[in-house]
């Protein structure tokens, strides 16, 4: 019989790595961040210094928006025995443009990246990236919402 990791095991691995919990027992509550970038991330990237962030201002803060933190802060946790994966899903992240467009200058965001909470923004580690499928920008008063950002182990 070939070796493998159970779907429960995948979920628990995600719990340990992303939620600092084991079976819903909280260990700590450090937050994550979701930032918007214009470059194409890849598996070799390490920190936010490797990214090209969109221009800050008008409702977008450099370093991104604080996302669900460790300690039962994730939106949805899934163990899928039919498709054989474990998955953690973030609560929706939204920015509202105020006083001008987001980005305030330059090109629109093409990817969102999940970062840890290092005090120095450029030192934050890049955990995952999410394809926004095209360059995204919004006018003053409009809202950009990222729904169901998920980390999945298959």
């Amino acid at each position, binding site marked *: 019989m*070939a*070796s*493998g*990791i159970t779907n429960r095991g*995948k979920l628990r*691995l995600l719990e340990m790595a992303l939620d600092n919990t084991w079976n819903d027992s909280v260990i700590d509550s450090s937050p994550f961040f979701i930032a918007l970038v214009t470059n194409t991330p890849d598996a070799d990237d390490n920190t936010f210094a490797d990214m090209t962030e969109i221009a800050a201002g008008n409702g977008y803060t450099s370093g991104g928006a604080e996302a669900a933190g460790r300690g039962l802060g994730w939106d949805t946790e899934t163990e899928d025995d039919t498709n054989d*994966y474990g*998955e953690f*899903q973030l609560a929706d992240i939204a920015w509202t*443009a*105020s006083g*001008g*467009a987001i980005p305030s200058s330059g090109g629109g965001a093409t990817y*969102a990246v*999940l970062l840890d909470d290092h005090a120095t923004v450029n030192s934050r580690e890049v955990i*995952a*990236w*999410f*394809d*926004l*499928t095209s360059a*995204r920008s*919004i*006018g*003053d*008063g*409009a*809202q*950009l*919402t*990222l*729904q*169901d*950002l*998920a*980390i*999945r*182990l*298959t």
Partner: protein
Amino acid sequence: MAISFVAASSVRVANSNYAQLAHTISSGSDILLLVAIALTTHENRVSSVTWGGTELTQHHEGGENQGDKAWIWVGTIPLDAASGAGTLVVTLTSSVGRWCIGLCEYTGVSQAADPFRNSAVTNSGVNPSYSLATATDSDGLAVSAAALNSGKDATPGDTERVDQASASPTQRIHMMEASGTGSPVTMNASNFADDTFYVWVNCLQVPQNITITPAQAEVVTSASVGTVIEGTDTIIIGRTASVIATARVGAVAVIEPIRADLIMNVTEQ
């Protein structure tokens, strides 16, 4: 957020190529100021329209291209204009006997480069009334500006915002709106006393929101047992970052994860 009318200002001008119109921009958000100028003639045109020294964005100009009829110029004050008191300054190419300026302020309007949803729909003619249809959506607001000539009157079927007439012989600027409730929306003006008018119609749009559901970030994992060696054989495995120690006595268990090689040597001393 819905589009809302805030305030209007207007002025009539006689025998001049220059006029000013004072207006105070509110402190609301997503503001758009719509400016319309009605002239009696197509020959002496609008030369310059500024707000705070900045030229307005022209959206339309047209009318009856003959004699002293109705001619209209439509534009918007720059979208990032600051709140507070200001002055609209209009200069024509030459003096005109009778002309009028109207200005309407709205909040909740998309601040995209083009705040209008649809192409301008214009109409002109000599009929006593006009009825215009423009495609809208439920969030839009259809707005119009009409230049009316020679003592004419207009009884709007929708919400009137500016109705400014000059001295006789009358030139009039008329601005009104109708909320978008589907497609099409008809704006009515009836009971004109006599002929010519020229009308511009368009639809303001609300800020457009974007919602995205990106594909999940997926990590493929597996666990497998590599080669189990018993005895004192030394095995070199061509994987990156591999460290292999030779066992003196006993078995070497090799576990190879996908992205990192982890080798545990179990020796029996």
